[in-house]
């Protein structure tokens, strides 16, 4: 009986999403498990053909966010896909992308001088269906600008990532989601010295038609792996400290 109910509810949810104009992703990304935050997405699939926003307040957060984005991009790009990285102050080290399962030569970088050009170039690129994804690094982004990006994306079904280096004043945007990635202490396997796999605290602050949440994950074997056990210990440590 309860299983039946759940089924009905799931069908109704899908129906509502469809009425709201949400199209389930037809991209290959739908087949790829994105780990623990899969259930937060509408219909359980990562929304492609949408603009996602990532907040980063410091260089360290920026590095963690770049890593996390690369992890998301890898299944989107597949074996052949090409992505564009638009930035006015890029620090990304291309060879590092290999560590996240992306061949760096499939990235095209646009290193611009002015931030205004970044948004223009992003919009132009998002209209091009040949790209798998477009990443843009900006500081400020107005609601209008984000709306323009969203409109561009709706035609071409390209996925956009906006990395915002904003310390404060994070206003409303038309982006489909908002993330914040913070690096947390890595946990090497028992008894081993040195650093473990990259580990992050992933906060999904907003998700249209989905759920928000906080996860502790690490990048291991080219996929996101949830970290459960030690999370509480770490949080306790932080609270004490």
């Amino acid at each position, binding site marked *: 009986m309860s299983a039946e109910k759940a089924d009905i509810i799931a069908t109704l949810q899908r129906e509502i999403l469809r009425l709201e104009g949400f199209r389930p992703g037809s991209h290959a990304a739908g087949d790829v498990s994105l780990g623990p935050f899969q259930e937060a997405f509408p219909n359980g699939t990562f929304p492609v053909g949408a603009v996602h926003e990532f907040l980063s307040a410091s*260089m*360290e957060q*920026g*590095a*963690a966010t*770049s*890593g*996390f984005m*690369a992890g998301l991009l890898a299944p989107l790009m597949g074996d*052949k*896909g*090409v992505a564009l990285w638009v930035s006015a102050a890029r*620090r*990304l*080290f*291309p*060879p*590092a992308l*290999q*560590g*996240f399962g992306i*061949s*760096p*030569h*499939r*990235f*095209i*970088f*646009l*290193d*611009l*001088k002015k931030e205004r*050009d970044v948004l*223009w*170039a992003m919009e*132009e*690129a998002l209209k*091009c*269906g*040949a*790209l*798998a994804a477009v990443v843009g690094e900006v500081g400020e982004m107005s609601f209008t600008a984000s709306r323009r990006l969203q409109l561009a994306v709706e035609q071409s079904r390209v996925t956009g990532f906006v990395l915002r280096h904003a310390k404060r004043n994070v206003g409303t945007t038309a982006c489909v989601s908002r993330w914040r990635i*913070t*690096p*947390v*202490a*890595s946990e*090497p396997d028992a008894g081993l*010295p*040195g*650093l*473990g796999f*990259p*580990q*992050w605290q992933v906060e999904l602050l907003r998700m249209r038609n989905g759920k928000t949440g906080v996860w502790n994950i690490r*990048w291991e074997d080219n996929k996101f792996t949830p970290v459960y056990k030690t999370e509480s210990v770490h949080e306790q440590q932080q609270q004490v*400290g």
Partner: protein
Amino acid sequence: MAGRYVSVWFRHLMTDWFSLQEPERRKQPFVLTAPVHGRVMIVAANAVAEARGIHVGMALADARAVEPTLQALPERPGLARKLLHRLAEWCIRFTPVVAVDLPDGLLLDVSGCAHLWGGETPYLQAIVRKLQARQYDVQAAMADTPGRAWGVARFGRAPWVIEPQRHLDTLLTLPPEALRLEADAVARMHKLGLHQVRQFIHLPRPSLRRRFGESFLQRLGQALGHEDEVLAPVQPVEAYQERLPCLEPIVTATGIAIGLEQLLQTLCKRLQQEQKGLRAAVLKGYRVDGKVEQVSIGTHRPSNSPQHLFKLFETSLPTLEPALGIELFILEASKVEEHYDHQEKLWEGHGGLDDLRLSELIDRLSGRLGPEVIHRYMPDEHYWPERSFRRAVSLQEQPTAPWCIGHLRPVQLLAIPERVEVSALTPDHPPMLFRYKGQLHTIVRADGPERIEQEWWLQQGQHRDYYRVEDDAGRRYWLFRLGHYHEKIYQWFIHGFLA
């Protein structure tokens, strides 16, 4: 750059050709004849006949008296032109601009060609040897003007390559015939005792004009390089250019757009027929007030699609200032490359680097933002982080070496490493704490050192010992120590941020 020209003189063009038909004639005295005023005159003689005193312009009967075994054949009118044309087309292997120089020569514009044969002398030798191998008796010279090359080839002597600085000396000793003058002018010169160019080259121009006419001065100027001479190449290099004259001067943006569209249609049609695509194009607008306005575009892959090219022009069209009106548009493809249509069909909708839509996007972006902002990287086989990748040459380039994945590299790298204050145990323990931008970081975990040596063949300097460290807040950094501990000159730097 000054031009370079080669003049090739076929000394026995017609008789050589007849000898080719029947090789026996090469060893016998042999002439070609034509009836002139009822007399049979010799119009061409081969080398053997000339050695026995038979020359062009002699009556055949007189020649027979000198040489009873003389063979004679009637000449074929128009043969020289046909032969020279064929030889000129053959000579396109040496330079694209070859002109027929009647009655017995070729003129080649060889500017910028000689280095492909390893210099001017080997180049000239190659031409002469190739033609001699075809059984033609040739003599050739290279000089700065067609006129001088012509004169030296016929009346000069070795060296046949005339250096630009000694052109005047070579000209001085030549007879007046070397200036390509009319026959009566030459006769008059010899009558006046002017047997060498040096005797009259310094005479005042007005008196030369009075005596020998305007065409004499023109020939002299051409030999000296004061006057331009236009060669008529056998296969003209047709520029990829389209013109659109307008009945009424165009002043509106719509009008300009329509004009451009028409030009693109015709140009692209021709490019498509020849399986070519343009890489760079210029649109010029000739205004009523005599000024020329122009906009240019460039593409990443040869393109002959009018829609795409129009889009590229569209962004810069508003900079075209019509003022009182534009009366003539010229669209010129300044750079054209091979382009195959069937490949394009294969690529469409592919979604990879070969996708046509991608290169069109890149064209649009570089049109607006400049080509220097677009980067793509290839792995380079260096361990030194700054040198571990290089710029890709084209959008289609594929890596020849694998990307280095042996060591985890920072996601973000500082363009220039920044100095940090570090406390660390000697001699090579990882750092315990470091201060960066005024903030103290206590290091909890560390990996390293990973030593990367300077590549001494590229750059001198000290090695780097890299550590991957994590501080108490879980933030990860890439630090390195430059130099050895024991030498007391080491320094610590932060180079990147790990994910």
